[in-house]
């Protein structure tokens, strides 16, 4: 049996078509409706409530807590202020990405790390000789993501916190209808949004409070299908979909450095010793062999492939997660790892790994797609990520 999240008593009653999927060993709603259109629309137009409890969560405290994290992640922990959040990858000694997640400085001396994969052993290995305590709080803490342009308006009705004082990637502790919560201005949608952290025992009342407060604002529970489209538009990567954890990769070629997955910005060149520092410095000097970029598939060329069979273009309302080869003049130069039709941008999008120098924005390439059982190639243009970056996200 898969585990259920602390919100399960509420979410399970809402999944109309029993469309469940697994996420880190948990049972998660793909969508509450039989299809994700309305849930996706809520993320971009009103507000959506997304159970993200399956994230692994660790509380790290003690004299060397900061040192441990600084040694683990690629960003400079000495600059993380209390109440601030980092999004960051972390690497092995070869500079290959193990995982990505967030680090929150909860107060002066304690931190919370979230990750896609279980990280306890890795943290312990890195903590050798340090005075630090790492607690796996994954099951003790429920997490729900409130995303969308009206998310702030909803929170304002239930929380005493001055939300204007909580900028992008900041964290505060407050209450929601008297339930103590941690509130971070973060999310996986690229929109205005918050993630709310709560004791698992209080998860259900929190859900109820948010749903009730959110009703006049069109708050809609959303599942992974809707989230997947939003995160592709936002150019946010997913471990073991867009890149392999170096701990999972069966062969060397499957590993990626932060530079190769568009996370070079999160590698602090000037910070003290950390995992992969030497390898990453060398890679920075010689330039990354791969780039991770957005692809915009040219509609006319896509449509022509279908028209040749008398078909209109077939597009799905669910994102795809599969590897699709990318060519330049007949030679394979990379592969796409996920993609979708963006209902907002009205474009076909993909996330792709491309060899140097093809990852330069504006480069024209060809993406393999299958039309009527036949492999075809559609024209596509390399775009800088994210595809969608509204002002409200940071406003």
């Amino acid at each position, binding site marked *: 049996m898969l585990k259920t999240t602390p919100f399960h008593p509420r979410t399970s009653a809402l999944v109309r078509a029993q469309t469940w999927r697994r996420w880190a060993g948990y049972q998660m709603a793909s969508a509450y409706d039989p299809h994700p259109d309305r849930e996706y629309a809520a993320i971009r137009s009103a507000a959506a409530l997304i159970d993200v409890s399956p994230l692994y969560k660790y509380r790290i405290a003690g004299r060397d807590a900061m040192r441990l994290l600084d040694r683990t992640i690629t960003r400079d922990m000495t600059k993380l202020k209390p109440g601030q959040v980092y999004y960051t990858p972390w690497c092995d000694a070869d500079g290959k990405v193990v995982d990505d997640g967030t680090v929150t400085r909860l107060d002066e001396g304690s931190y919370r790390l979230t990750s896609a994969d279980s990280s306890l052993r890795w943290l312990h290995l890195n903590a050798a000789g340090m005075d630090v305590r790492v607690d796996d709080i994954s099951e003790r803490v429920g997490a729900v993501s409130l995303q969308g342009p009206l998310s702030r308006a909803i929170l304002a009705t239930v929380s005493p916190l001055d939300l204007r004082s909580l900028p992008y990637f900041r964290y505060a502790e407050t209450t929601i209808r008297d339930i103590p919560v941690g509130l971070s201005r973060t999310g996986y949608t690229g929109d205005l949004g918050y993630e709310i952290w709560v004791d698992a025992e209080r998860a259900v009342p929190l859900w109820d409070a948010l749903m009730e407060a959110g009703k006049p*604002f069109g708050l809609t529970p959303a599942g992974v299908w809707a989230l997947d489209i939003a995160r592709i538009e936002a150019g946010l990567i997913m471990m073991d979909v867009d890149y392999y954890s170096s701990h999972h990769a069966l062969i060397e070629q499957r590993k990626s450095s932060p530079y190769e997955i568009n996370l070079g910005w999160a590698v602090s060149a000037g910070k003290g010793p950390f995992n992969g520092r030497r390898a990453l410095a060398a890679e920075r000097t010689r330039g990354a062999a791969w780039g991770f970029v957005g692809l915009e598939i040219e509609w006319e060329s896509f449509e022509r492939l279908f028209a040749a069979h008398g078909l209109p273009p077939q597009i799905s309302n669910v994102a795809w997660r599969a590897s699709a080869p990318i060519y330049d003049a007949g030679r394979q130069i990379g592969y796409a790892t996920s993609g979708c039709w963006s209902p907002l941008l009205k474009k076909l999008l993909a996330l792709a790994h491309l060899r140097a120098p093809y990852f330069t924005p504006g480069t024209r390439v060809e993406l393999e797609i299958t039309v009527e059982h036949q492999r075809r190639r559609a024209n596509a243009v390399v775009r800088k990520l994210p595809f969608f970056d509204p002002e409200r996200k940071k406003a």
Partner: protein
Amino acid sequence: MTPRYDAIVVGGGHNGLVAAAYLARAGRRTLVLERRHVLGGAAVTEEIFPGFKFTVFSYVVSLLRPEIIRDLELPRHGLQILPLESTVTPLDNGDYLAGWADPDETRRELCRHSPRDADAAVVFGRLMHHMAMAVKPILGMVPPDPTSLSPGDLAGLLKLGGHFRSLGPERFHALHKLMTMSSADYLDEWFEFGPLKATKSASGIIGTFLGPRSPGTAYVLLHHYMGELDGAFRAWGFQKGGTGGISESIAGAARAHGVTIRTSAAVERVLVRNGQATGVVLEGGEEIPAKIVVSGLDPRLTFTRLVEPKDLPDSLVEAVRRFKFRGSSGKVNLALAGLPNFTCIPGEGPHLRGAVSISPSVEYLERAYDDAKYGEFSRHPYMDIVIPSMIDPSMAPPGKHVMSVFVQYAPYNLNGGWTDAKREAFGDTVVDTIARYAPNLKSLILHRQVLTPLDMERITGLSEGNIFQGELALQQLFFLRPAPRWAKYRTPIRGYWQCGAGTHPGGGIMGASGRLAAMEILRSTP
């Protein structure tokens, strides 16, 4: 002296804005002049009652051409279309008929009423898909004149002929039937359950002074199936913020390409010298010269108000005089303190996020038409009801709602003429009819806006309040829209062009007329 503008577009409706954006995109210095303070023509959102945004006239979108969305990058300028998933028809016996977003749920629902129709719907859907594919190339072409022997027309006709031959006999025959039959007769060939036929045939009467049993309405039905949102035919959606948001997004794209847009700038007439348009005069006397003038207004205004009929051939003036407008629909917009509770599906379920269709039977619709035929508004009208605030909560204050009610029939030429009292009586009829299905409605109304075809004409300028700038009747389509020989966006006056929905391919928030006009202008005036 070279005029400051290459082109002046008269009318900031969506087609005018589309034409302007395409002209400017090709480097033409373009000015749009809109009479009202707000852009969009019949695609406007206005805060008629404080805190409540009404999508005053048009209210849903499906037909907007995908190539326009792409070419003008409308999503960057605010286009955001939200799903409108269901249609529920309350029945007189207290039950309902629903079409949901999920095909299996819809099928199960249809089975409740007629298992045979549930099967038929699948095959019918496939046929409509083929029909939409069949007319799609026509939507994107400048209509060739079948009586002309010019190389351009012949090429167009050949292309068209080839296209129709490629359909094969079965689809060609189906298309012919759709072009000639009444929607009720056509649907009779497919379905048995009355409310299903009624709800589907309602698409065939919208904006038209015809009943579901009038020949020609099957085409209007198809016209409503031709939308291609997100690659799927027949997908209808709701623009965030109302249809004014679509106009604003097109205006944003136009401005980004360098178009100058002036609102509250009513054009008095087009200046014509020696058979050539030379600019416009605004009300108040300001003259603005330009190399060409493009009218986004309907054919009547384009040919008989903006220019002197004496500058036009008699045959055209006559054809325009005969062009049928005869607006047949009204609109009621309500500000509500809460949600209506429909007796057939009590509570606040998903049906409130879709359309509610008051179309219990074909007889009901035909009787509604009978009233209009004899000069009265329908005592029991057809209505298409949407609650925009359920789809986009920002349309109303939190917890409050707006309701958009499209009503048919309300004839432009009402016996004795429209008066304030008759408008209110019409509004009462609408509210009373909905209240039969949702009894709490009356207690929720905070504000009511009632719009008759006369109001639509007065506010938007649309002649006789016809929402399509002229009926989508077969004799007014394609190379006959708006008049024989003048269906290619040209007029007999050099440098004077037309780009409104009164030209091919016609009404709805489609933008195709504006785009095709601009392309024809760019092709012919280097």
